[in-house]
């Protein structure tokens, strides 16, 4: 949980909606495999903005992996062009090209006969870096992916767990600091708990590194979590929709996207919206533990609230108090009423908040700032209202957009 709330990635809607400079551009990219009638990838055109994660997602056999592997030409395109950083790389030496592109695959493919340090040093060695620089870089990267260099540098891949190996895989891909990273189901073969942790760590890392990343998965939830933009592909790598996760969830382009996103799109949405983005109830009735009972009781009676939130001297919420609790004199205030539960921070997602409410059997979540000071309340109705509002405004926005520019269809 804490990983989710702390990993502050680029705000999904705001920045991603206005793509900046393009880093990778696919132009009419096509792959025909010999003896196969329909092309595996049919004239795919797509722009990946600098510093963003674009996730290719789609059902088995839709051509997403083929599309990804054409970017570093592990699979050579039959026709079309690949432009990286304004350079047409379709026909340059593939080995030179690949040294500029980090590559992470599901099976990781660490070299079993080499130590972890040598695995990470592969590309620096290919590029002819001097020993000292390579060594420093290796240690730095192991540190970045959360592996202590002194412990792990001299180990062999088989001495590591699956999650640790995948960390090494990421470190190895980042070794020569390539501006572009290709990731083919990088967390696909890892158990769900470790996967969740690695995803969060990777998002945090990406927040610092700002690489341009093409990422393949078959899991729409992973796509929504990881992607600044999602390319939903149909058979032949036909682009069913290429948009931010929000757009895809609120406004699926067609039935295929709707089916693929599946039911529960609204619930998925909750993971995209953060508490700070919705309006909180900030006029809640509060009292402080150093005020006297009678003052508090009167204030509660005069308000239209049935309970009051008691804060400590640092303004941190501690108890919920109702009128009867304030009448009793025996117990100290800090033990009266009910404990304040379901406390969330502003960067938590609505999904987190909802979960906290359900766990705490509370109809309301208490929002506090980083120091734990009370900021406002968020109740279930607020969440439902937030969803509806966003849905309506976005639906309206896209309707308007379509009317003003009839050619602006999302197409391959």
């Amino acid at each position, binding site marked *: 949980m804490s990983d989710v709330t702390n990993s502050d990635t680029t705000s999904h809607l705001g920045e991603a909606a206005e793509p900046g400079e393009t880093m990778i551009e696919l132009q009419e990219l096509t792959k025909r495999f010999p003896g196969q009638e329909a092309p595996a990838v049919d004239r795919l055109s797509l722009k990946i903005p600098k510093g963003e994660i674009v996730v290719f997602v789609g059902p088995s056999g839709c051509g997403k992996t083929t599309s990804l592997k054409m970017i*570093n030409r*592990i699979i050579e395109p039959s026709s079309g062009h690949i432009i990286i950083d304004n350079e047409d790389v379709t026909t340059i030496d*593939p*080995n*030179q*090209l*690949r*040294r*500029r*592109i980090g*590559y992470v*695959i*599901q*099976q*990781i*493919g*660490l*070299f*079993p*006969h*080499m*130590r972890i340090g040598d695995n990470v040093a*592969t*590309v620096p060695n*290919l590029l002819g870096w001097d020993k000292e620089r390579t060594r420093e870089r290796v240690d730095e990267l192991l540190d970045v992916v959360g592996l202590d260099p002194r412990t792990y540098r001299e180990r*062999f*891949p*088989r001495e590591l767990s699956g999650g640790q190996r995948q960390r090494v*895989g990421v470190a*190895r891909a980042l070794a020569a600091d390539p501006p572009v990273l*290709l990731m083919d189901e990088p967390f696909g073969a890892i158990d769900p708990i470790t996967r969740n942790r690695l995803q969060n760590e990777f998002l945090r890392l990406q927040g610092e590194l700002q690489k341009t990343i093409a990422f393949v998965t078959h899991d729409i939830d992973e796509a929504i979590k990881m992607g600044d933009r999602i390319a939903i592909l149909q058979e032949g790598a036909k682009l069913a929709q290429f948009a931010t996760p929000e757009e895809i969830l609120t406004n699926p382009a067609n039935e295929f996207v709707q089916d693929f996103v599946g039911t529960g799109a609204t619930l998925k949405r909750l993971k995209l919206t953060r508490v700070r983005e919705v309006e909180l109830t900030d006029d809640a009735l509060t009292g402080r533990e150093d005020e006297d009972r009678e003052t508090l009781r009167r204030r509660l009676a005069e308000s239209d609230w049935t309970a009051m939130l008691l804060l400590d001297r640092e303004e941190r919420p501690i108890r919920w108090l109702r009128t009867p609790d304030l009448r009793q004199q025996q117990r100290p205030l800090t033990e009266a009423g009910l404990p304040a539960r379901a406390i969330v921070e502003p960067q938590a997602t609505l999904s987190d908040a909802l979960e906290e409410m359900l766990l705490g059997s509370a109809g309301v979540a208490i929002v506090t700032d980083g120091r734990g000071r009370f900021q406002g309340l968020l109740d279930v109705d607020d969440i439902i209202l937030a969803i509806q509002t966003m849905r309506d405004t976005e639906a309206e926005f896209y309707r308007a957009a379509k009317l003003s520019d009839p050619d602006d269809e999302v197409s391959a």
Partner: protein
Amino acid sequence: MAFLEYLSDPSTQRELISQTLDHIYLTAVPVAIAVVLGLGLGILAHRSPQLRSPILSVVSTLLTIPSLALFAIMIPIIGIGAGPAIVALTLYALLPIVRNTVSGLFSVDNAVIESAKGMGMSATKRLWKIELPNAWPVMLAGIRVATLLTVGIAAIAALVGGPGLGQEIFTGIRRIPASGSLESLLGGTLFIILLAVLFDLLYLAIGRVTIPRGIRE
């Protein structure tokens, strides 16, 4: 006891040592040539699906031909002596080496090769730095089998004038059942077995030194 007397006779000792050295020569040279040839053929068979089946069936056919026949057929071509034996033994040693090179290369995880490719390693670099080191344990096992095979078969070279410990056995055979024949048979045979054991230990040591720790059993 007669065997101990036989072994303690200085002239027998001289004979056995020189034949053992010849036998080592008769084993090491063909195996060395076969390693070079077999490596090349194995890599070729691994790379080219068209050549794989012809290469493998030719080398396995070679091993089907009885050794005496193969030794003999070399004589009109090369002459008498160590030459025909070395050529014939090289041909025998090929099969285990080629076969294990091919299966060793096939045993390398595809993901490992793809990630090497994805990092921009050239095909040559991939072969030498990634594929061969990972295939090496299987290849070494093939070389070991080839060596043991060669040590045993090399004895037969003596029948058609070749050097080595087979000569001592052959001397014994010609004298059967006269006295002294058993000693020669035992001497030649045991020294060959001893040699095989020594080669085996050598391969154990080679494995220790050359197989990277990350892929050692």
